């Protein structure tokens, strides 16, 4: 009898202890995140989360890899509609309007403490643009990128070009590409001059070309687009001409996903791709390669890209605070530098480039700062209401043009018309 009471008592105490620590000390967070580039980045994220938890034993973060950006967005949105949203997520910086329209997220400003203002101002302004609407900051940059030009230095040498002088203008890129094209005895191309991917993120590439032609694609309030402007059409025309007129790029749609392999296999001498792929290319390239800013027409330029942290509205105030603590830890200079080195993404704060680790890295691998340097010319990525639908419309137009189904003019006119119909109700 005595023993019995004792055992019961002990059990009760254990339960109480477990209960206590659960509510009073640990905050549970679930985070969805995407991986859109090569390399074992899930391991990197898991490792960073582990270290964060060691340093912050009162916060538990469950990081869930949810596929590419679209998949992650889908997962987060369905989870939300199903009543169990994550507390924070890494999503496209451009999903902002959609998330606001769905009433899903909260501004970060209200959650940060007294020193919050200084922290928010520590990021590169170009990266903050996508996350700020009016007076509010809705998201924090994390895995951010710009588009850069990867080029095969060995191929340059072989073609009699200076491997240290990548093309700086559209005309130069077309000319150099012609020299870089290689054909076999029967006249089939074995190496293309340049490839710009047209699946998945075709709108992004079009935006880069448009920026270089000094044309913005959207307004700040995200309810107007300018796809059928003369300069946008010129940009798409240049792209199409690379394959149809100059014949330095394969015809048809070029796969975003396999383009890196094309480049690594030497099937193309140059490619336009996200800087997020830098480390994966570096690790796998069997030849010398260079990284350059995108060439200019009227000006240099690239849209920013990549993902930001968002904090969800349905989280408890406690969870929201904890989420911000996690985000601040992840974007601190040391972590930003580490993430940049391991992925190739641009580190999101200038301070990250002043860390020892980054300095050492850049010394041995100067390619790593090209994307950062390009930031001064960067423009926020296309971001409007109903982003998913607008991206699809632009992607379809790009694909219609590169496959020759429509002229750039017709394709973009149609895209503009469809977009107007969608965006009308947000004016």
């Amino acid at each position: 009898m005595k023993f019995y009471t004792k055992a019961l008592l002990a059990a009760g105490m254990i339960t109480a202890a477990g209960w206590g620590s659960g509510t009073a000390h640990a905050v549970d967070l679930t985070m969805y995140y995407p991986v859109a580039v090569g390399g074992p980045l899930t391991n990197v994220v898991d490792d960073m989360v582990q270290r964060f938890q060691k340093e912050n034993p009162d916060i538990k973060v469950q990081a869930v890899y949810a596929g590419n950006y679209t998949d992650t967005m889908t997962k987060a949105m369905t989870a939300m509609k199903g009543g169990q949203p994550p507390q924070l997520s890494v999503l496209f910086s451009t999903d902002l309007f959609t998330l606001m329209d769905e009433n899903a997220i909260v501004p970060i400003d209200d959650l940060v403490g007294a020193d919050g203002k200084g922290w928010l101002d520590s990021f590169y302004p170009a990266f903050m643009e996508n996350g700020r609407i009016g007076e509010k900051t809705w998201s924090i940059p994390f895995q951010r990128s710009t588009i850069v030009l990867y080029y095969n230095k060995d191929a340059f040498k072989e073609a009699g070009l200076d491997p240290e002088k990548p093309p700086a203008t559209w005309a130069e890129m077309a000319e150099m590409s012609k020299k870089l094209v290689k054909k076999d005895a029967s006249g089939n191309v074995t190496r293309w001059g340049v490839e710009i991917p047209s699946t998945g993120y075709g709108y992004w590439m079009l935006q880069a070309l448009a920026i270089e032609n000094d044309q913005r694609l959207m307004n700040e309030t995200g309810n107007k687009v300018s796809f059928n402007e003369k300069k946008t059409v010129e940009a798409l025309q240049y792209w199409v001409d690379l394959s149809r007129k100059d014949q330095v790029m394969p015809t048809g749609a070029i796969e975003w996903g396999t383009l890196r392999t094309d480049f690594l296999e030497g099937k193309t001498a140059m490619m336009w791709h996200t800087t997020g792929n830098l480390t994966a290319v570096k690790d796998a390239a069997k030849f010398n390669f260079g990284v350059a800013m995108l060439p200019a027409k009227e000006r240099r330029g690239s849209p920013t890209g990549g993902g930001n942290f968002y904090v969800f509205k349905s989280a408890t105030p406690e969870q929201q605070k904890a989420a911000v603590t996690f985000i601040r830890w992840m974007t601190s200079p040391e972590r930003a530098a580490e993430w940049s080195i391991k992925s190739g993404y641009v580190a999101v704060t200038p301070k990250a480039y002043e860390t020892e680790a980054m300095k050492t890295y850049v010394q041995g691998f100067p390619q790593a700062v090209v994307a950062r340097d390009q930031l001064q010319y960067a423009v926020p990525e296309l971001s409007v209401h109903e982003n998913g639908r607008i991206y699809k419309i632009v992607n379809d137009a790009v694909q219609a043009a590169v496959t020759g189904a429509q002229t750039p003019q017709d394709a973009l006119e149609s895209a503009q018309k469809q977009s107007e119909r969608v965006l009308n109700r947000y004016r």
Partner: protein
Amino acid sequence: MVAAAMISARPKTAKRLRWAANANAWLLLLPALVLLATFTHYPILATLYHSFFSLGRSGPATFVGIENYQAMLEDDVFWQVLRNNLVFALATVPASIALALLMAVWVDRKITGRSFLRLAFFTPTVLPMIAVANIWLFFYTPDYGLLDQILRFFGFSGHNWLGDPGTVMTCLIVMVVWKEAGFFMIFYLAALQTIPPELKEAASVEGAGRWYFFRRVTLPLLMPTTLFISINALINSFKLVDQLVIMTKGGPNNASSLLLYYIYEVAFNFWDTTYAATLTVTLIAILAVIAITKFVYLDRRIHYQ
């Protein structure tokens, strides 16, 4: 008097008995009925209901009548995916059936390596569509894909198979036929084995050649199987879109998109759930028409033993 009372009582008892028997049957059907109602009938009705409302983003959803359907009729992409789906169905269904029949007849004969052949033909069916799509993605990859490597070996130039709107549909059709035919072959094989060998002998005594027998006996006897398979294939051609996710995302420029994939895009990329509901109702209507055609019309016309 007594007799009259008995007569009037009898139908009552019969009625009660019938009711009891009915209740019993309904009870037995209940579990299935509950599951069906919860997971099939209710969602269909809910979808139908939602398709008559506005999206209600930042505001309550309002009844809009057939506005969503009107928008659908004006949606070029809808018409394109519907057209694509028809092409896809008209190409995959007869081709996979013909191929399945051919393979079944072939491996039904007593040839060496028969079990190996059967296995080989059936393998594509066992593989998940996602795996198949990945395998074929490698076949179709420009330049270093298998197809282009073979072409190059014979001196032809490569082709961007999935990136060209003119070829992408054919590529997917070929793949799906390859994937489906093995599955249908199993049905044909089973059906062929139910045809008694004496029929063939009787026909050969009567002087019927192999082709005559196939045309006049085997084929008619396989008709119920063919019907079953073609309905399945037809429904599958509206249901199977996994390959699009892996291979083309419906591109380039919707050239390979199918109705169900478009529904997925509208629902989960555009978050336009009411329009997705509208499209879903359309898809369900198409499938229902197919099913009704089968049950009401075709089953009566085709001989069943």
